[in-house]
């Protein structure tokens, strides 16, 4: 079989992760070429196979981004023989990934130490809400809680309002950092031949998003929620335009930008408070009011384009529909159209970057049906004949 021309071609992942953050980390690695085998069971299917009423989804997802590219096998891990099979799968893999609460994998007999006995140079990724150690390590959590624990939720919001909850981007941000750390461990293994246990706490990834504020806090400084303001750039913010809910984001760096903004908008001011960068910073609120007035009757899209032509950083606040319609993202392969016999053509997030020599990155296959790849995984990789597999199904080891 021709090997994929992708950076991680040849890497295999035994994927025990569930929900969002963990599956996203292995999805990214799969986009980069790794073969990712998702291990579930009929009794404990992953979230996308079930209704998700709190999110307003009343049935299973037909397409699930984070499970795309993955192979699927069933293993009833409550059964010792299934655990033994999982170990055999790990033995022929490079990475094992899990996202349970600390202790669950140990109870299953699938913790780092146990799996190193079958794969001495295993890279083992644990991605959890609060990490594998510490007094809160047993805490359950989801993306909004990661942001709350980590301080990012507190720091985000209108300066006179409540904190703001982080959503899936927080899960996926944690997943991306986990994928990065896994790659570092793989590169380390190539040098040392040693196993590694990577421990990613999603709340600590949230902390990493406010590393500067934490430096200030360590020095005893009080840090404030800034809303859309910036301490260096003015004018800076998100402004209403002629069309309802069509907002323009604007960041003016210095005098050249400031002059260009006035030129493009056909507006000007001789107010001395706005004559220098330092003065504009000092009178940020008054300046914001002035610029908001200038932009109120503008066409956001046209103004963003004209400002960019003059070197000013501006962009419309885009909905997902705007993104779906964007030629630039499609040209880059960041957006890709996917379809399958039971899935009408739709857009998905494609390659995370463009690689000049290993360019077969991105989505290769869609959401797997539960257990659809057992011929390959149990048959080819583990060498189980069909009678043995039928027996395992019969006894609900494969379930």
């Amino acid at each position, binding site marked *: 079989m021709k090997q994929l021309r992708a950076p991680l071609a040849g890497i295999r992942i035994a994927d025990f992760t569930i929900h969002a953050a963990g599956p996203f980390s292995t999805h990214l690695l799969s986009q980069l070429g790794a073969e990712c085998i998702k291990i579930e069971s009929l009794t404990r299917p992953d979230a996308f196979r079930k209704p998700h009423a709190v999110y307003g989804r009343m049935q299973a997802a037909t397409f699930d981004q984070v499970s795309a590219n993955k192979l699927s096998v069933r293993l009833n891990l409550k059964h010792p023989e299934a655990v033994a099979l999982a170990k055999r799968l790990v033995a022929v893999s490079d990475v094992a990934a899990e996202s349970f609460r600390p202790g669950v994998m140990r109870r299953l007999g699938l913790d780092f130490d146990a799996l190193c006995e079958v794969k001495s140079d295993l890279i083992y990724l644990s991605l959890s809400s609060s990490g594998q150690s510490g007094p809160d390590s047993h805490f359950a959590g989801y993306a909004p809680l990661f942001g*709350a624990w980590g301080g990012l939720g507190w720091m*985000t*919001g209108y300066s006179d309002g409540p904190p703001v909850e982080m959503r899936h981007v927080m899960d996926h941000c944690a997943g991306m950092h986990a994928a990065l750390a896994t790659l570092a461990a793989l590169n380390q293994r190539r040098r040392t031949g040693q196993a590694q246990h990577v421990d990613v706490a999603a709340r600590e990834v949230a902390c990493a998003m406010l590393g500067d504020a934490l430096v200030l806090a360590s020095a005893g400084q009080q840090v404030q929620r800034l809303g859309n303001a910036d301490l260096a750039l003015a004018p800076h913010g998100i402004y209403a335009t002629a069309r309802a809910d069509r907002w323009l984001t604007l960041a003016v760096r210095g005098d050249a930008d400031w002059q260009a903004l006035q030129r493009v908008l056909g507006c000007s001011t001789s107010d001395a408070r706005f004559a220098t960068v330092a003065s504009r910073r000092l009178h940020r609120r008054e300046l914001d009011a002035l610029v908001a007035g200038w932009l109120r009757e503008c066409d956001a899209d046209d103004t963003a384009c004209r400002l960019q032509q003059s070197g000013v950083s501006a962009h419309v606040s885009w909905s997902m529909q705007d993104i779906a319609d964007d030629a630039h993202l499609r040209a880059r392969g960041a957006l890709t159209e996917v379809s399958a016999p039971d899935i009408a053509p739709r857009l998905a997030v494609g390659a995370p970057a463009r690689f000049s020599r290993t360019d077969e990155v991105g989505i290769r296959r869609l959401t797997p049906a539960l257990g659809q790849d057992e011929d390959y995984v149990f048959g080819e990789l583990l060498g189980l004949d069909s009678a043995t597999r039928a027996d395992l199904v019969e006894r609900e080891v494969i379930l």
Partner: protein
Amino acid sequence: MPFTDVKSSSDQPLTGCRVVECSHSVAAAYAGRLLAAMGAQVVMLEPESGSALRQAPPWLEGSGESALFAYLSVGKSSRIAALDQSQGQQLLRDELAQAHIFIEDIPVAQRAACGLGSQAQTLSQDFPQLVHVSVLPFGATGPKAHWSAEEVNLLHAGGEGYLLPNGLSYEIFPERAPLKIYGHFASYQAGASAAMCALAAWWAAPTHGGQYVDVSAQDANLTVGAFALQRLGDGSLEHRATRKFRYGGVFQTQDGYLELLTLEDRQWQGLTELLGTPAWAQDAALQDPLERSRRGDEINQHIRTWMAQHPTQEIVRRAQELGVPAAKYRTPTEVIEGEHERARGLFGKVALPSGREVEVLAAPFQFHCTPLRRAGRVAGLGEMQAKDQA
């Protein structure tokens, strides 16, 4: 022990990995920072005036040093290289000759003036094993490759900004402009993506040689925002007005704010117990999760009334005992003083160029077999040349 105070160690995940970083943006600097945190030897090439990030807010009172630069530069070395001059360009090439990874954010239009050639492939001819990662707001190719952006633009070009705030904050201020996330969230996604792709390409180098990797901050933010695109494919265009949990979310307590979210039946049962098994929650219809979703606003009103009468810590402690996911919205000071964070050694002492010492988050990941070093320092401008001359 997840981290170590040893200042240098030969046994870090990226020991032996040499990285050259030319960064003007938070994104490129964060990419280098993540690699440095894992043991890579990262050399910042700075202009004679120093990286603009050295002056970037927020600033430490007293010394006036940039807390952002301190965070982004721990563990890196600094060398001055004026890339608009031949001497600086030669220095860059000397550094690249020894490097495995080159991370830069030089706009495509300015590359030729920096001696990089207008085409990225130019470098691969001279340094065939080099992984060259460019991280730009909209990438190096595509119709908008020449567009510029700051953090606020990036967060909204990637789709997440339009969806913020949601929940309680939107309910209070429905007419206000959408929000950005604090700090440099969008740039950090770009930096993490750049570091991830750099290591993927480095992994492939023995087979494929070096290569050019074109990373876009907008792409990275769309990547982490994939769920909203998935929802669009399902027929639902998300908006901050409607992107709220049917019940749960941000709650004001007697003395602060907390986040509460129950996605599973057993968590709902725990929540009703937390609330003291009130009569309204005994409605048999609420045993059905779909019915609970339909009556989410009503449920939230009950929860809000109860939360306002209880202190945060007490609620969170009891909630976690009952298996109900709940967390206090913590301030940065509470985070840095957090018992959990201290137990995990999340922060390390770092010496700044002024000699001042602060604590800095060591890394957002831990390696149990070879703990990361957490103490460190922030290099003064051009420190490597000064050492060379000494």
